[in-house]
Each structure stands twice: as C-alpha cells, then as structure tokens.
C-alpha cells in the first residue's frame, strides 16, 4: 500500500517544475491546488498504511481548506491590482 503513497508523492514532485517555471501566476496557484488534492489522497493512503484513523480527519481538514483557500487568496491578489492602479492614478 505504501507504493501507492510513493507514486502519489512522485506526481507531486512532477508538479514542482511548474512552480519554478511559471510563467503566469495562475500556473503557480495551480500547483498549490495540485498539492492540496494530492496531499488529501496521500493522507487517505497513509491512514490505511499506519492504521491511524485520525489521519482521515487531517485529510478532511485539508480538503476543506484547500477548497476554500484559493477563493480567499484570489480576492487578496485582486486587491493588489486595485492598489497598484490607485497608486498610478494618484
């Protein structure tokens, strides 16, 4: 079963290249999205491997937050653009 976790981790490793390369901010945010969903999968598998049911709770928590975080972060980044626009109009 830990082979499954290993392969999932490997697919995360592939994603890192995209953060480093970019080019757009969207690509970097996407990698966080990938880390969120793959992380949930790894936690589910680890809870089976170690027979630790508490890790399912961790996966639930990560799933909820990975769900909500991009929405909030995007709001903040839009503020950045608004701010720089205000600055240029002054």
């Amino acid at each position, binding site marked *: 079963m830990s082979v499954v976790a290993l392969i999932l981790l490997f697919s995360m490793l592939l994603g890192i290249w995209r953060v480093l390369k970019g080019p757009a901010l969207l690509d970097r945010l996407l990698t966080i999205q990938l880390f969120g969903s793959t992380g949930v999968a790894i936690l589910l598998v680890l809870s089976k491997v170690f027979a630790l049911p508490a890790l399912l709770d961790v996966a639930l928590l990560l799933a909820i937050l990975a769900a909500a*975080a991009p929405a909030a972060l995007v709001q903040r980044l839009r503020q950045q653009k608004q701010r720089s626009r205000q600055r240029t109009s002054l």
Partner: protein
Amino acid sequence: MALLLFDLVLCALLLLLAGAAMLSRSLTQAVTLFIAFGVMMALAWARLKAPDLALAEAAIGAGLTGALCFTALVRYAKQPAYPQPALWRPLTFIGLVTALLLASLSQIPLQPSSAIPALVQQHLPQSGVSHPVTAVLLNFRAWDTLLELLVLLLALLGARQAPGDLPRYRGWSLSISWSRLLSPLLLLVSGYLLWRGAAAPGGAFQAGALLASGLVILRLNQQLSWLSWRHFWVRMLVLGGLLAFVLAGAVSLLLQDLGAVWLSWPQSIAGAVILIVESFATLAIAVTLTLLVVGEPKPEVADA
C-alpha cells in the same frame, strides 16, 4: 522498502521547496513555494505519526499562512526589485555550520532516556481525558497553555499598533456564496475536533486554528463585518480564553485542600473543567488569529 523511498522523496521535496523559496528571484514565487512547503510539512507530520501536529499544520499552513503571506505581497505591490546579493559567503559559512551539525547527529542516542513519557502514561487516568497530548497541554503543563494564550494576546495588541491600509474590495458572487456554503461545515468540523480532543487527536489548538482559517476566508469575502476589535463582545471573546483559564484555576484551588498547586484540577471534575477551558480557548485562539491575519480594514473605501 517502499516506505523508505517514500521518506526519501518526501525529504527531497521538503528541501527542494524550502531551498527554492529562499533562492527564487521573484517574491511571489517564494511565497507560493512556501505555502506548498506548509502542505508538505503536514504530510511529514502524518508520516512521523503525529496526527495532532498534522491537524494543526494543515489548518495553519493551508489556511492562515497563505492569507498572511498574500497580504504581505499586496503591500509589496510597487516596490522596486531588489538586487540579488552574492551567494558564496553565506553559503560557505552556513555550509560549514550545517556540516558540523550533521556530523554531530550520530551522537543522538537511539534509545530515548527521558522518564517523562512513562510518567504521562502513569498519570493519564487521573487527568480527566484519555488522549495524552491533550492531558499534557490542559492538565500537566497547563501553565504553558495559559502563557501561550497570553502570547497570542500580546501579538494581537502589538499588531494593532501598526495598522495597515488595505482597501476593501468587492468580491465575486461565486466566491462569496462558496465561502458561505462552506462555513457551516467548517464550524461543524471545528466543534468535532474540539470534542474529539478528549480521546483522540484534536483539541483546542487544532479547532481554533481551523476556525480561524474559516473566519479569515469569510472575512476576505466581505462576510462577518461585525468581527472587529471595535465590537465589545469580540474583545471579550479574545480575553475569554485567559479569563476562563484563570477562573478555573481559582475555583479548583478553592475546591481542593490546602497546599494544592495552582492550575491543578480536582480529579472528579477534571474532564469538565478541561472541556470548558478548551471551549473558551478555542474561541479566543480563533478570534485572535483572525484579527491578526486580516487586520482592520479601512472604514469605507469606494468599490472599484
């Protein structure tokens, strides 16, 4: 064998993310990498069989740190790019120190020699809860937790002296309704974590951190406008954790015989005291962290 390979890839990922975050040219890239690093740390805690820490790290790393760092990025919006300093001098020095530290790792004994874990196991039945981490935090070392609540309060008071000036902005309706849809679930899961803390991984810190992430997300989507320091009851919630702790300490001092130690609960009501203190502490942690992360928006700024 596969587990060892898993460890190897996990450690490589951690080091790669941390190193790239420190050395990358753009600050946005550094912040993104750091958030990914937080998710990876949660996986590492899960691997090292520390589910309590994995819960807290997932709540903090995936929710709060992201919001904090992106807020800071907004403030860096129009700063000129800094020149990249030379690398060789810090690299030589730090490399030398790290090599020495690595060499000294072989001195760490494989057998733990501390008697404290055995003591915890021995006194666990008298603590009022059956999960050892909660017993340590809320009973055996309640002093630490009390002082930690004080640290949180001090951080909030300090941060209030340096207010930011982020304008409000109108969110998309999709994002607003999505955050509204998620909020009951967040509340439910925080309550579940708090309740589970007595017997299984979970407790005030994890529940508080999760609740704080939820509140931050709602605040960033223009909800909960009452949640600010101006509101009297919000201040009471922030202070509530400390007050409940001190009150519980005083009451249990009165209930016990002379010579009882400060912050030791009478055995018969220990479970109830811990649950009450934890509930107030959860709310206090959640509200304090929320105020720390989102700060106070300017009263009114016209929409874009």
